[in-house]
C-alpha cells in the first residue's frame, strides 16, 4: 500500500493516540477542563471529581481550575460558588468503536465523521449562613452528565499556516430532561466545544501533523499546504485522521558548525524497539517526489570551505577551498537504502599557493690544469701535473623560495556517490532534552571520483612558475640580461619542471595528487558524512517529550511523550511510524 499517491506527505493520527494526547493535556493543563469560582484555584475544595495532574503542575503553582465569577443569587447580595468539570474525554474516528453513540445521534458513526464523548460534572456550594446548616462543613451537590457529539474535520488557514479544525454538528446529553433544558444545555455545550475545547484539541493534532514537519527558523524553512487532489482532506477513516500535505518550498541553511555547538549538552544515540502492537498512533509517509525536494534542499544546503597548509614532498602548500554540491540522482530501494549517484562537487574556490625552493644557481667550480696550463684536468697525451678547482659563485645566498599561486577554481570535475540507510535513534540528552532522530547513515566508504582536470592546467602552471622566477629576479634587482642568463642556466621551464623540481609530465594529475595528499578531498568527504549523519538529523530531530501546547504565562507547556518512532524505505516512499506514550 502506498500512502503518498496523492500528496508529498501523508500523516495519519489514530484516535487512540489522540485520546492519549487528550489525557496528557488534561493532566498537564487541568484549567482547560475545570471551571468555577471555588478557591483557591490551585487546590479548590469542595469539587465534584478530584483533578488529576502531573507533579510539575503543582510545582509550578498552576491553577487547577479556570477562575470564574460566583453565581449571583438574584435579589440578594449573595453568590454561590460552583464548579463545572470535564472529567473524561475521548475521540472516536470513523468507523467508531471506542464508545457507543446514543440513538439520538443516529449510530453508527457516518463516514468521515468523528465522535467525542465527555463526562461533565457540575456542582453548587450552598453557603452555611443562608440556610440552617444541614452538614458540619461546606459541601457541594454535584451531578454528572455524559455528553456525546459528532462532527467533521477540515483544514483552515492559508498554505504555510494551516491547521486542522474539528467542528461539532450533532450533540446529545442522553439523561437530561426536560428536553428544553437539554436543548439549552446542549446549545451551551456546543459553543463551548466548537469555540473552546475542540480548537485546543485541533491545535494539538495540528502540532503533531504540521509542526513536527516544520524546521526551526535558524536552519531553514518549509512551506506546506494541504493537497486538493484527494476527496477528503483531512480524511476521517480507519480510526484515523489522515492529512495529505504537499511541500511547496523547502530551504536548508545549516550553519557550518554543528547545531549542537554552543550548548553544553551532548546526545548519546541509542536504539529503542516498539513495545506496543497494532496500528501506529502516527503514520507519516514521504513520497519519492517529496524526498526529491528534500534531497535537492539537502544538496543545496551543503557548503564546504577550508583553508590551511600542508606539505607535498618538498613542496609546501597553502590552500583556500570552497565547494558545493549540484545535480546527482537518487534511488530509493526496497532494501531500505537510498543510493545517491554522480553528485557533482563544484569547486567554487580551489586556490593553492605552492612554495618551491629554487636552487642557488652557482657557476664556476671547474677543475683546471695549471701544469701544463689547460682548461681542464684532462690534458691530452701528457696528462695534468697540477689540477686546481676554481671557486664557485652563487647567485643567491641560500635557496630562495618562490610561491606559485594557482587558481584551479572550476577546473576540476569530480563527483560523489554513496548509499545511505535511514535509521531512527533515540538520543539520550545530557544537559539537553532527549530526542528522536531520523538519521541517514551513509554506508562507508564514501567515494569521491575525480573525473577530470582541465588540460590547460599544465601550461598554466608552467607559465606561473616562469613568471614567479622572473618576478623573483626582478624584485631582487637583476637586469634583464641576468634574468635571461639565470633562466638559461636553469635550462628553460620544462627543464625546471621536470629536472629541477622533479614534477612529472602530467602536471594536472600531479596537482590532483597534491590536493589529495594535503587532505582537501578527504576533508570534503568527512564534512559531507558529518552533514548527512549529524547535521541533517539534528535539524530534523523531534524532542521527547514533544510540545503540543506552549507555555502560557505561568502555565507549563504541554508535552506528550513520543514512545516510539520507526522508519523504513521502499521504492515509492519513506514511511515514518510512531506511538504516543501513556
Amino acid at each position, binding site marked *: 500500500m502506498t500512502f503518498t499517491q496523492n500528496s508529498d506527505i501523508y500523516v495519519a493520527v489514530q484516535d487512540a493516540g489522540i485520546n492519549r494526547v487528550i489525557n496528557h493535556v488534561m493532566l498537564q493543563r487541568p484549567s482547560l477542563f475545570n471551571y468555577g469560582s471555588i478557591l483557591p484555584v490551585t487546590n479548590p475544595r469542595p469539587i465534584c471529581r478530584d483533578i488529576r495532574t502531573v507533579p510539575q503542575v503543582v510545582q509550578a503553582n498552576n491553577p487547577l481550575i479556570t477562575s470564574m465569577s460566583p453565581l449571583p443569587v438574584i435579589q440578594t447580595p449573595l453568590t454561590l460558588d460552583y464548579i463545572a468539570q470535564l472529567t473524561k474525554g475521548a475521540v472516536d474516528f470513523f468507523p467508531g468503536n471506542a464508545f457507543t453513540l446514543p440513538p439520538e445521534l443516529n449510530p453508527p458513526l457516518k463516514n468521515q465523521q468523528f465522535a467525542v464523548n465527555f463526562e461533565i460534572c457540575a456542582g453548587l456550594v450552598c453557603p452555611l449562613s443562608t440556610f440552617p446548616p444541614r452538614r458540619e462543613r461546606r459541601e457541594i451537590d454535584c451531578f454528572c452528565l455524559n455528553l456525546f457529539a459528532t462532527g467533521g474535520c477540515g483544514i483552515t488557514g492559508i498554505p504555510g499556516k494551516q491547521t486542522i479544525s474539528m467542528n461539532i454538528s450533532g450533540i446529545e446529553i442522553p439523561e437530561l430532561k426536560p428536553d428544553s433544558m437539554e436543548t439549552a444545555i446542549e446549545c451551551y455545550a456546543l459553543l463551548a466545544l466548537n469555540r473552546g475545547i475542540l480548537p485546543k484539541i485541533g491545535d494539538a493534532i495540528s502540532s503533531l501533523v504540521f509542526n513536527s514537519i516544520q524546521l526551526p527558523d535558524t536552519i531553514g524553512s518549509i512551506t506546506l499546504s494541504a493537497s486538493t487532489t484527494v476527496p477528503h482532506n483531512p480524511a476521517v477513516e480507519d480510526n484515523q485522521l489522515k492529512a495529505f500535505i504537499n511541500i511547496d518550498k523547502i530551504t536548508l541553511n545549516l550553519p557550518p558548525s554543528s547545531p549542537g555547538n554552543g550548548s553544553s549538552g551532548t546526545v548519546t544515540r541509542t536504539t529503542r524497539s516498539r513495545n506496543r502492537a497494532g496500528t501506529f498512533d502516527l503514520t507519516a509517509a514521504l513520497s519519492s517526489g517529496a524526498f526529491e525536494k528534500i534531497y535537492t534542499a539537502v544538496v543545496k544546503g551543503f557548503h564546504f570551505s577550508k583553508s590551511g597548509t600542508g606539505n607535498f614532498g618538498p613542496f609546501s602548500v597553502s590552500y583556500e577551498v570552497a565547494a558545493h554540491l549540484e545535480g546527482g540522482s537518487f534511488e530509493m530501494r526496497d532494501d531500505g537504502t537510498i543510493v545517491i549517484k554522480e553528485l557533482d562537487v563544484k569547486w567554487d574556490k580551489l586556490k593553492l599557493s605552492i612554495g618551491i625552493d629554487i636552487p642557488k644557481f652557482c657557476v664556476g667550480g671547474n677543475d683546471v690544469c695549471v701544469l701544463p696550463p689547460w682548461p681542464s684536468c684532462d690534458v691530452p697525451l701528457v696528462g695534468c701535473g*697540477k689540477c686546481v678547482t676554481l671557486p664557485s659563485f652563487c647567485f643567491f645566498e641560500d635557496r630562495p623560495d618562490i610561491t606559485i599561486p594557482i587558481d584551479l577554481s*572550476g577546473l576540476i570535475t569530480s563527483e560523489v556517490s554513496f548509499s545511505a540507510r535511514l535509521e531512527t535513534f533515540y538520543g539520550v540528552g545530557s544537559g539537553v532534552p532527549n530526542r528522536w532522530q531520523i538519521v541517514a547513515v551513509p554506508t562507508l566508504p564514501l567515494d569521491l571520483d575525480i573525473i577530470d582536470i582541465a588540460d590547460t592546467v599544465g601550461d598554466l602552471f608552467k607559465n606561473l612558475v616562469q613568471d614567479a622566477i622572473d618576478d623573483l629576479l626582478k624584485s631582487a634587482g637583476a637586469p634583464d640580461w641576468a634574468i635571461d642568463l639565470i633562466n638559461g642556466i636553469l635550462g628553460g621551464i620544462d627543464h625546471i619542471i621536470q629536472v629541477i623540481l622533479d614534477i612529472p609530465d602530467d602536471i594536472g*594529475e600531479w596537482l590532483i595528487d597534491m590536493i589529495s595528499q594535503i587532505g582537501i578531498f578527504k576533508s570534503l568527504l568527512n564534512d559531507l558524512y558529518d552533514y548527512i549523519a549529524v547535521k541533517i538529523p539534528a535539524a530534523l530531530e523531534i524532542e521527547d517529550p514533544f510540545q503540543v501546547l506552549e507555555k502560557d504565562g505561568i502555565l507549563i507547556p504541554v508535552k506528550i511523550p513520543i514512545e516510539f518512532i520507526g522508519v523504513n524505505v521502499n521504492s515509492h516512499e519513506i514511511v515514518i511510524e510512531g506511538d504516543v506514550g501513556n
Partner: protein
Amino acid sequence: MKPILNKFMLRQATIDSGSLAVMSSIIHVIAEQGEYRGIVFLGEQKVGKFALKVIDYTEGSQADAVPPKQTNIDLAALDNSAGAKGDKGSTSFTLRTGGQVVFYVSTGSKEYAVEIYRLEKQKEPIKVFDSRVLGQGDIFVAHVMRPGSYAIRNVKGEGRAHLKVEYPERGKLALNIDPVMVECSNGTMNPDEVKVQSVQAVMFSCTQESRITIELKIPEDRPRPGPSPATLASMQKKEKIGEAGQKAILRKIRFFG
C-alpha cells in the same frame, strides 16, 4: 626565506686581474717551503693580512698531517675595513710545496690586490708575489657574465684580444663547461678572438709580466617578453571519455570514516 641576490656577480665594471673582484680568481704556485705573509690591499690601503705556511711535502712521503695541494683564500673575508677582523674565515693557511694558492673574492663590490712575502730569518721579508703583476706560471680566470663585446688588454705589455660573450639562450646554456684558455706571451694574446657563453670562464695563462683587463665595449641586450598570460579565460574544459563512453576516473578518493 627572502632571497638575497648576489648582485655583485652581475657587475659590469672592467675586470682587472690587478684589482681582483667577484667572479675572478688568480692561481699562483708556491714552490719553496717556508713561512709567508700575505697583505691584502684595497687600492693602496692595506686592509688585511694572512699567514701562509708552505710545508715541504712530496706525494707518498710520511707526515703527521698532509698539507693541502690547494688553498683558496677569499680576500673579501680578510678585509678588516669591512669589519672582517678575521672572523669571516681563517687568517692562517697551509700549503704543500709546489701547491697552488687560489685568490678570489666571494662577494661585495670591492676590488683587491694581494702581495705575498716570504719571511727570512733576520732579514727583511722578500716579496714573492704581487697580484698586480702576474708572472710566469700565474693564471688569471675570469667569468664574464654580461653579454656583449669586450676588449682584452695586457696593460703590462702589448697583448690585445677581443672577447665576445654570447647572449644566454634559454635551454641552450650549459653549466660548468670548460674555460677558454688564452696565452699571454711575447706581447701577444693567443687566440686574439675569443667567444664564450655567458658564465663560461676565460683562463689567462701568463708567461711574462701581465695585468689583464677586460673592458665592456658594446653590451648586448634583447627585449624580454612580458609576463606569460596566466589567465584561465581561454581555458576550455574537456571531459576525458573512456573507450566505452563511460567517464574515466583519474583518481578515486575513499573515505572510511
